[in-house]
């Protein structure tokens, strides 16, 4: 098996030790680390994400896979810096949260992980986050996109108010807005003027990547 296959396998079997071993071996052999990350570790995470969407594996498995990938990245990041290499990161920062009044966070956290895997820097600012606080986070982190999740019809209305607050703060045109959550639809996104509607974590990773790879 190639290093890429070993890396993918380590992630898909949630094996932190093996993931670190593969990463160390790649560094020692002066292998192409960017390719190892993209075609090995990230590819494994993408497959775990697909299995999760198909309800073949569950949240702890996704987290365990992400933990294995993170363990490998701890080894690879210093080497990447030393070589001046860049992974397809640099897709930008995304601020993500569950909107004011809503405490549901699991779906939003999964989206955060999948966006990280896709190459975004994710600022996950929590759940039940007041709208002004989200605007402040957008000013602070200067994200390329901001995603809000609403799991209730009574809280999704805040997504509309949030659009207005971004306009009032003068930063609406500097980022894309994304809405998600069980009652949220494409029609709702169109109605309130949000840029992206995403149905689940895989959909979010695909649409965000498509939106920012184009730019």
């Amino acid at each position, binding site marked *: 098996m190639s290093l890429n296959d070993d890396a993918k396998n380590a992630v898909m079997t949630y094996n932190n030790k093996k993931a670190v071993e593969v990463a160390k071996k790649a560094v020692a052999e002066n292998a192409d680390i960017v390719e190892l990350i993209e075609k090995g570790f990230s590819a494994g995470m993408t497959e775990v994400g697909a299995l999760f969407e*198909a*309800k*073949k*594996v*569950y*949240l*702890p*498995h996704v*987290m*365990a896979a*992400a*933990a294995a990938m*993170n363990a490998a990245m701890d080894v690879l990041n210093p080497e990447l810096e030393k070589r001046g290499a860049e992974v397809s990161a640099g897709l930008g920062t995304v601020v993500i949260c569950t909107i004011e009044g809503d405490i549901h*966070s*699991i779906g939003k*956290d999964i989206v955060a992980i999948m966006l990280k895997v896709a190459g975004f820097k994710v600022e*996950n600012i929590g759940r039940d986050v007041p709208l002004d606080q989200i605007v402040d986070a957008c000013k602070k982190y200067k994200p390329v996109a901001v995603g809000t999740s609403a799991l209730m*019809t*009574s809280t999704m209305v805040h997504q509309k108010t949030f659009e207005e607050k971004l306009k009032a703060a003068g930063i609406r045109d500097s980022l894309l807005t994304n809405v998600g959550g*069980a*009652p*949220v*639809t*494409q*029609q*709702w996104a169109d109605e309130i003027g949000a840029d992206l509607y995403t*149905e689940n974590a895989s959909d979010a990773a695909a649409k965000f990547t498509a939106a920012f790879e184009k730019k």
Partner: protein
Amino acid sequence: MTEYYTRMGDGRRVTMTKEQIMNDIQAGTADAADMASIPALNANDIEHMCEIIMDQSRVVGVEPGHEVVMTYDIGQLDFTGDNGNSGNGVDMGRLEAALLHERALGADTFELAHSDYSIKPVKPVISMEMQTMEEIQAEIIAPYFYGAMPNMGLYYAPDGPYGNPADLMREFKIEESMASSEAAAEHLARDIEFVTTRLQAAGSDGFNFDTTGSAGDADFVGTLNGVKKLRELCPEAYINVGAAGESVMGIHGMIEFEGEIAAGLYPHQQAQLVAKAGANVFGAVCNTNTSRSLAWNLGRAVTFIKKAVEDSPIPVHVDMGMGVGGIPMFETPPLDAVARCNKAMVEIAKVDGV
């Protein structure tokens, strides 16, 4: 080409041709069949469902003699709750609401419920709930239960003593997250025993566990352990266990009930465990996708429920309301959609009750 008035999963009005409706039913049933590895609806079922959806009448119903048992969850709150709680905002006492359901709305069973509608908040007011149960039992004729959600989320921080698995997993503390789920499930089972046995002592005809598994697989297992205990202690209790969704969410991932991993179980599999725990009725659920049509959602929901009815050793009363059973996710679901989904569940899925 003729277009038929129908709905999207968020309640929006749309029109579709017969071909579009048939395509969506086929896609919905295929999705369920693929997810749960169960049979898709056959050609006759799909044609029948299409006819139900295309019916020009605003309200449809089953033929006389084919009526099924009608029971209600959430107790009086569907009257007294406000619109955000899928209620009508009509203030009345719990006795009046119970009698209204029995005598005016034709409810075959009804339940007493606390406004928080969860097991845990009933504990501090158990004496008041017992007194109210006794008072209403003296007036009502229909079987009268107590109802609450297991709602294991209330046992996690910040509302309860155990670490929140969502937070722990975000920090990659996966084993701690699992241990927390297990501890909460044990606590939930103890609370179920405390609450249910006291209400049975006050004259309740039984207990309705609503939205079981809403906090994931450990919630599902904790509830079934509570049900098992209730069955042991109160063999005469009539127990209804309603699910939270078509698939048990794997927040723990490996927790078991009677040797069976709960995560990822579909309605036909959930029914087996619910029966094993000692319940009398299984409330099967399929959630609505707001971005898809009523035809897609109903095709999908009936596929899951039909298989559950076929396989279940106990009667299946399908959960039909806001955002479940093909019905749009809308505070006050449109009557045309509610009637069509109910008719399809009775005539195609052959449910025992609603």
